[in-house]
């Protein structure tokens, strides 16, 4: 039995993995590459899905998969160190063990987007869950229309995957626009929030699907901008985030209105959750 089918049978089962690489992306964000402890194939995943990563002795936390779905012998996660568990995770050394549960949750509608333009709007670490989708579109270029990536970060030093952003922009039919909220004198790129990039994007709203991930406030403004540009609510997808515990819809920690983010999400159609986005209590 492969790891994939085992995980499908029992999402509560933790698989042992070994850290193969830890790369620093920004001062507080790191990318971990892990492989199954016993070698062989890892867990196949769909772009947008997440895993529960167990840091032994510290805790378990949900992290979106940020690697290439075509490379199933390794899993890649980009993690921002913001608390005790994430700090422990990014402090793992090569050769250390971590437990992996999943892949879990819904993914981006990569198949539904075939034949259409793909608009990706990411803010901060929100680019990480979208990176697998970018890999998939770029490695199946003929199946998709134009790829437009709009990415915003706080400052130039907090931009993720800088080399990859430059290499993605060199692909045919691909437009990559990057902005930062505040720039220093050395920054020659765009300064302004991510919504200010829309005026430079070459969009064909009637033939496009948009995938958005970032802070919720940013996503609210972005969805409004996408609607203003003519995208339908059914063609906009958002990745949501809440505190998760069981990750399979039992515990209710990540309840979001009538949904559980872990089981019904994290990727939702905008039309599905639009009324919830403006509810203060949620």
């Amino acid at each position, binding site marked *: 039995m492969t790891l994939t089918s085992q995980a499908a049978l029992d999402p509560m089962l933790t698989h042992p993995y070994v850290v193969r690489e830890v790369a620093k992306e920004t001062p507080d964000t790191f990318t971990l590459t892990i492989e199954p402890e016993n070698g062989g194939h890892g867990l196949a995943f769909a772009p947008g899905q997440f895993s529960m990563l167990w840091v032994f002795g510290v805790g378990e936390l949900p992290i979106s998969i940020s690697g290439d779905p075509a490379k199933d012998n390794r899993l890649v996660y980009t993690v*921002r160190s913001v608390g005790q568990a994430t700090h422990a995770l990014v402090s793992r050394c090569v050769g250390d063990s971590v437990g992996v549960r999943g892949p879990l949750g819904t993914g981006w509608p990569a198949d539904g987007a075939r034949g259409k333009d793909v608009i990706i709007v990411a*803010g*901060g670490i929100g680019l990480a869950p979208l990176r697998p989708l970018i890999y998939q579109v770029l490695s199946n270029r003929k199946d998709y229309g134009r790829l437009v990536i709009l990415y915003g970060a706080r400052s130039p030093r907090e931009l993720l995957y800088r080399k990859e952003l430059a290499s993605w922009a060199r692909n045919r039919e691909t437009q990559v626009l990057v902005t930062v909220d505040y*720039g*220093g004198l050395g920054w020659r790129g*765009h*300064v*302004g929030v991510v919504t200010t990039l829309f005026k430079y994007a070459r969009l064909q709203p009637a033939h496009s699907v948009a995938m958005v991930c970032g*802070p919720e406030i940013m996503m609210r403004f972005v969805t409004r901008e996408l609607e203003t540009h003519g995208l339908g609510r059914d063609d906009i997808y958002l990745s949501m985030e809440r505190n998760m515990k069981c990750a399979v819809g039992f515990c209710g920690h990540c309840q979001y209105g009538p949904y559980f983010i872990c089981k019904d999400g994290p990727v939702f159609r905008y039309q599905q959750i639009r009324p919830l986005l403006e509810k203060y209590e949620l």
Partner: protein
Amino acid sequence: MIREGKVAVEVLAPQHKPIIVATLSIGELLGWSWLLPPFQWKFHARAIDGVRAIALDGKCLRTKCEENHDLGYEVLKRFARIMEQRLEATRLQLLDVYAVRR
């Protein structure tokens, strides 16, 4: 009005390095200080690369707007739209949405 190139709008403060708060590019308008009293610039603007722009005589345009209120209303409507967009972007910027919440 910028026809080519990019312009950085900067804030300068004593003992601080200049901070770029916005970048303007092709088709965008730089500056409306000429429109409202006290008619003084509040920010610095720096060409990031080769910039071609159309500059208008603010005092002359203001006089024409006073003389022809149809023109004045049209000019104000267009500038108000841009101001509204910049205000919204600035509010979002001030929220510092990418900061770590502890």
